[in-house]
């Protein structure tokens, strides 16, 4: 096979394997860091926005709005305070409220959070922010991929990821554990039957077990009675429940949005009225997500700036690598010139080396960003309970990849000029 320019360039890179590998890694780290930050930022925001779905407000007794949203909507932790059933009923009676769906959290199944809901929860709440239960009815409603939704006591439906990861399905039985971390007290004696598996919606709710709310009250009332008698109390039924047993940890609220009125204005008025009750925390998931991202974006910008600095340092290392190689390769360059290579061709070879280093770094960086995204995703789940599927944005990959290659090409200019200026005769001792 004839010797081609590509082969010359690759031979040159291979001749300096160590330098080639370290330079590629430098570029790859920068590209990987940038892409990980960008993709995780977008993915986290999308995940959080999808998680809020079509609700407008979360009402709870949590100490702060952000904690309320993180716990009630994103299952980040166990709520610390409860609301009474009377407060729920007051909300449900408010004419400005389209739905007020009570939820009770704090239990888990094999480390998956359990959210206790009433059977009509799935008719009203949807991960689709655009879904309006009154307008859309069954169109776009959150359905099941198998089985059916909750209809009776001690029934549960599994989020799609729970079913995938545990292998559980319709007909299986679950025992719930008190608390979100493993090793808690098991609510023995009351098992839930899985009646359905929800459709995958790429939200934190996919990793949740939804159980019947009234059954949850019965279980917790039984535990309370057992503790009071210091042993096994009589079996509690729904009829035995007192007002103190009917507690919820939060309420998903959607305001009535009439035609010609802005949703934000109507909901703001409702939220303002609800905030007059000091025992309630009223949070707008959308606002909290915005506030969270405004806060995070400061760190985000710093990380992106750092990643750009690393990218530029990667380009500088390409320049240094090629420049020092150029110094050492002057005899080789002079030899190629003697053999008939023009200055322009030598310049192209040096620039091609720079571009290959940049492109290789970009490719390895993409792989690193996928691994980095996965690592951050695991970390977010472990630390915050947030389920974030790293979103790979082709545009981000394109822009960062092209930036890496362009910077690499620019970094190749100085070494290329050095190669261009190589005095052939002087570098071909004894011809010099």
């Amino acid at each position, binding site marked *: *096979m004839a*010797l081609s320019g590509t082969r010359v360039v690759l031979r040159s890179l291979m001749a300096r394997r160590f330098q080639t590998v370290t330079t590629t890694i430098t570029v790859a780290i920068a590209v990987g860091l940038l892409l990980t930050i960008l993709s995780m930022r977008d993915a986290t925001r999308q995940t959080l926005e999808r998680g809020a779905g079509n609700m407008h407000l979360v009402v709870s007794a949590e100490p702060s709005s952000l904690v309320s949203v993180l716990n009630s909507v994103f299952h980040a932790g166990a709520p610390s305070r409860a609301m009474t059933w009377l407060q729920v009923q007051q909300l449900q009676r408010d004419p400005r409220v389209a739905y007020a769906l009570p939820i009770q959290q704090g239990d888990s199944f094999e480390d998956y959070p359990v959210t206790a809901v009433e059977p009509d929860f799935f008719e009203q709440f949807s991960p689709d922010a655009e879904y309006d239960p009154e307008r859309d009815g069954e169109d776009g409603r959150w359905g099941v991929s198998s089985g059916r939704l909750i209809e009776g006591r001690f029934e549960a439906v599994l989020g799609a990821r729970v079913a995938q990861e545990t292998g559980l399905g319709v007909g299986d039985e679950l025992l719930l554990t008190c608390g979100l971390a493993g090793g808690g007290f098991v609510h023995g004696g009351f098992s839930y039957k899985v009646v359905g598996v929800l459709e995958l919606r790429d939200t934190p709710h996919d990793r949740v077990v939804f159980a019947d709310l009234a059954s949850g009250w019965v279980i917790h009332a039984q535990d309370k009675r057992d503790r009071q008698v210091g042993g096994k109390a009589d079996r509690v039924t729904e009829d035995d429940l007192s007002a103190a047993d009917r507690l919820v940890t939060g309420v998903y609220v959607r305001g009535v949005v009439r035609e010609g009125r802005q949703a934000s204005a109507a909901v703001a008025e409702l939220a303002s009225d609800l905030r007059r009750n000091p025992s309630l925390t009223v949070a707008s998931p959308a606002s909290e997500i915005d506030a969270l991202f405004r806060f995070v974006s400061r760190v985000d910008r710093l990380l992106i700036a750092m990643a750009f600095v690393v990218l530029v340092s990667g380009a500088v290392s390409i320049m240094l690598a090629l420049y020092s190689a150029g110094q050492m390769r002057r*005899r080789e360059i002079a*030899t190629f010139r003697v053999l*008939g290579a023009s*200055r322009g*061709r030598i310049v192209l070879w040096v620039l091609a080396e720079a571009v290959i280093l940049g492109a290789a770094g970009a490719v390895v960086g993409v792989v690193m960003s996928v691994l980095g995204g996965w690592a951050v995703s695991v970390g977010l789940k472990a630390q915050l309970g947030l389920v974030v599927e790293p979103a790979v944005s082709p545009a981000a990959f394109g822009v960062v990849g092209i930036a890496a290659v362009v910077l690499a090409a620019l970094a190749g200019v100085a070494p290329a000029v050095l190669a261009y200026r190589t005095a052939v005769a002087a570098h071909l001792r*004894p*011809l*010099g």
Partner: protein
Amino acid sequence: MAAALRIEDLSFRYDRGAVDAPPVVRVGHFELAQGEMALLRGHSGSGKTTLLSLVAGLLEPTLGRVEIAGQELHALRGGARDRFRGRHLGLVFQTFNLLHGFSAMENVLAGLMFSDIPRKEHDERARALLGRLGIERVDARPEALSVGQQQRVAVARAVAARPTLVLADEPTASLDPENADAAIELIKGACAEAGAALLCVSHDPAASSHFERVEDLAALAGPSTVGVH
């Protein structure tokens, strides 16, 4: 038929402004016919290497002209001169200047890279040349070859493109007398086979016995030596 090499009133100073200083190289007239082989003698520092650089188009003469196969070399600029060099000139260096990191085969292919020879013939021609010159390990890197083998690879590279003229700069300087004789015969044989003229410069008196035509660089200089041959 145009001469392989024709030099007319050539002079070269490193500092073009120093018109009073004697030129490093001065040749009144010199001509080498197609396929002809000549030895150019001169003591160390007499400008032999500089003359070869001028003939190779690597340095610009202060005055005069160099023609290769009828083409005035220094009238060609930039890439055109580089291309012309790749097609018409082969060079053998004292230290071979083989491309390290490239195999023996690739070194010879590099000599064909800028030639007129069709690319599909490169591989076969390089392999045949190396075979004729006794290099069996064509995939070996230069550093894995003996000095003698390296020189053979360098010679193969110089004649690979079937050049009009091969320039050999002190090809025996780093060899013992026995190997020096063999090296010159090797270069002459390869040039003869390729149909190339050979201009060999050397300060080694023993090299003279291998050439029918031997010139003294000092004798080529000045008006009295114009048309010495």
